[in-house]
């Protein structure tokens, strides 16, 4: 009988890859330990710092939105480890295609967080330099960026920048997306393209178990990482609240890509601790108990516990990071408020590389209209 096993009678779920328990205990793994053998105490401290700063950017942005300084904010609360762990697995030559929630990845890639605030303030639509930071623009249309990432990876292939063995040359791409996004045609087409072309791309799905109000079971009835096998490439599920495990798993996947072995789907199993965005009210659709349960798995607390347990840091260190976060917050508040509004006529810039006669005329008519107010005011 060749009927494949259905959802009901699947083999037992493989373990979630976990290298740090929620209590901060290091779980040994024959397979993954070598992948992070080089990680020093300094590295752990620096990751901890990224986690804390990432969270602080987020909480500060939420506060700024409440104060009317931002139009909207999509909080990453709870997803810091998935983002920092995967981002720290990147090499400088790798490229990132994010959604709208990858603030901690941006931070790790050297994107000025003020630029993230600018976008959500409504000042621009992404003013960081994607070419320099290798961190591409936020994509709001669900799933669209997974195809861009795959195409970019096809470009890397054409440039001969995979499989050479040169660690500074071989490059890979990582595409971020959510659990909800897995239902979009685009994401599945990206899987097909990547598989068929063997493109060097890692599909990094942050399964935070909610797509606004819709729980995971509205998108799938089997674990998402399994989707990959059906398309002919590996899928792996990792504890998304475990920064070390996310680092190890993503490193392996990126290296496969750089080595010319093709795509991998990483499902980072995590939880959206906050609202979908600042306009959302999750109490309408989910139970507080769920949130409380996940609080116990906090991605930052477990690293802290691990560090304390292993004497990797003392209170002075933690205080130092906290202080740095405070300073960052002060800076963000000030910088956000100081962001200048765009000039009205700037909307005519960059529609095309060269302005068209129509747009020149439309710009002139706007200018004349605006000037007429000034004239009136001057009278």
């Amino acid at each position, binding site marked *: 009988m060749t009927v494949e096993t259905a959802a009901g009678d699947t083999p037992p779920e493989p373990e979630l890859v976990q290298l740090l328990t929620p209590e901060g205990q290091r779980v040994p793994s024959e397979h993954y330990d070598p992948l992070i053998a080089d990680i020093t105490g300094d590295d752990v401290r620096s990751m901890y710092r990224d986690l804390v700063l990432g969270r602080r950017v987020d909480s500060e942005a939420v506060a700024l939105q409440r104060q009317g300084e931002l*139009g909207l904010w999509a909080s990453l609360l709870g997803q810091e480890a998935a983002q920092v762990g995967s981002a720290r697995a990147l090499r400088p030559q790798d490229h990132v295609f994010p959604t709208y929630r990858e603030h901690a990845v941006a931070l790790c890639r050297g994107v000025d967080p003020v630029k993230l605030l600018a976008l959500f303030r409504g000042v621009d639509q992404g003013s960081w330099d994607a070419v320099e930071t290798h961190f591409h623009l936020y994509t709001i249309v669900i799933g669209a960026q997974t195809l861009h990432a795959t195409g970019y990876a096809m470009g890397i292939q054409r440039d001969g920048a995979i499989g050479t063995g040169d660690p500074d040359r071989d490059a890979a791409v990582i595409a971020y997306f959510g659990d909800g*996004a897995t239902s979009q045609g685009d994401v599945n087409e990206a899987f097909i393209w990547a598989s068929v072309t063997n493109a060097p791309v890692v599909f990094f799905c942050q399964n935070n178990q909610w797509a606004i109000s819709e729980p995971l079971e509205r998108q799938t009835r089997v674990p998402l990482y399994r989707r990959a096998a059906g398309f002919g490439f590996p899928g792996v599920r990792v504890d998304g609240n475990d920064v070390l495990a996310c680092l190890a798993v993503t490193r392996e996947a990126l290296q496969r890509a750089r080595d010319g072995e093709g795509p991998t789907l990483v499902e980072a199993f995590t939880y959206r601790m906050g609202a979908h965005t600042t306009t959302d009210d999750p109490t309408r659709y989910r139970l507080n108990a769920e949130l409380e349960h996940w609080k116990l798995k906090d991605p930052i607390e477990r690293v802290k516990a691990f560090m304390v347990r292993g004497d990797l840091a003392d209170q002075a260190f933690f205080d130092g990071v906290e202080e740095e976060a405070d300073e960052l917050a002060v800076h963000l508040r000030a910088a956000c408020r100081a962001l200048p509004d765009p000039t*009205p006529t*700037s909307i005519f810039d960059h529609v095309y590389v060269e302005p068209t006669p129509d*747009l020149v005329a439309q710009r002139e008519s706007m200018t004349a209209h605006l000037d007429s107010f000034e004239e009136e005011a001057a009278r």
Partner: protein
Amino acid sequence: MTDQPTGVQKLNIIKAINAGLRRSMENDAKVLVMGEDVGKLGGVFRVTDGLQKDFGEDRVIDTPLAESGIIGTAVGLALRGYRPVCEIQFDGFVFPGYDQIVSQVAKMHFRSGGRLRLPIVIRIPYGGSIGAVEHHSESPEATFAHIPGLKVVTCSNPLDAYWMIQQAIRLDDPVVFFEPKRRYYEKAEVDLDGEPDLPLESARVALPGTDATVAAYGPMVKTCLDAAAAAADDGRSLEVIDLRSLSPLDLRAVYDSVRRTGRLVMVHEAHRTLGVGAEVAARVTEQCFYSLEAPVQRVTGYDTPYPPARVEEEYLPDLDRVLDAVDRTFAY
């Protein structure tokens, strides 16, 4: 039976559409509501608030996150005899479903020689001025009004919202139903038990006037009424027409008016080039050639992508730009 609101109530557009949906679902067990977050959450704007609680998960369906899937499965449900009302969460997210809409929904009745009908309503909150990020403020109505086989309508106030959604659901043709999200919270009295005083596909004179005609639809109707009030203060009488139906485009009232005023200003948020205003201008010039004292003036969003929120008010037509255009028609 659920708690059907009744009597005369002061409702905003959200509540009016909610009441219209509720009434449609009460009256016809085949009416379904489907889309992202329409269930427990009641939609991101709460338009479907409470419907799943009252009509169950089989009739108010939280769908997977995929617009082509929403429209494509609605086609199948309609072929089975259901009347799906699909919610697209925001204007800019309709495009993944565009293929199903233009190549399948629009054509099935025609292709089948009239044998098959697709009574599907596709609700799309649209337009700007809500301070949103990208893809949340667009006005894509022209890309639907160009497609034969679709009807395209839009409401501008709670009363129309209440009746038009019910009329759209009752229609056996597919309807793209645009909702002016910047006006969602504006209130008016709605007699929930009356009868609609206009067919779905008729324009409405929103304000009679004598000196110039202003045509608009959806979110811009209020802007034009405000402009008319300001013009009245200056002694100029504007007739404001709410088009309501963009396909078929009902311009009888506009022709009548232009034949009297000789001047037309057409207002919409959508891009100027090939926006609905282009068609209105072309038809009005064809039909009222000898009456026009001035060419039709269009006041529209510019031909740029929808800009960041902090500059959207300059992008969008407003009272001043409407009045400027009226002035221009008098300069001829």
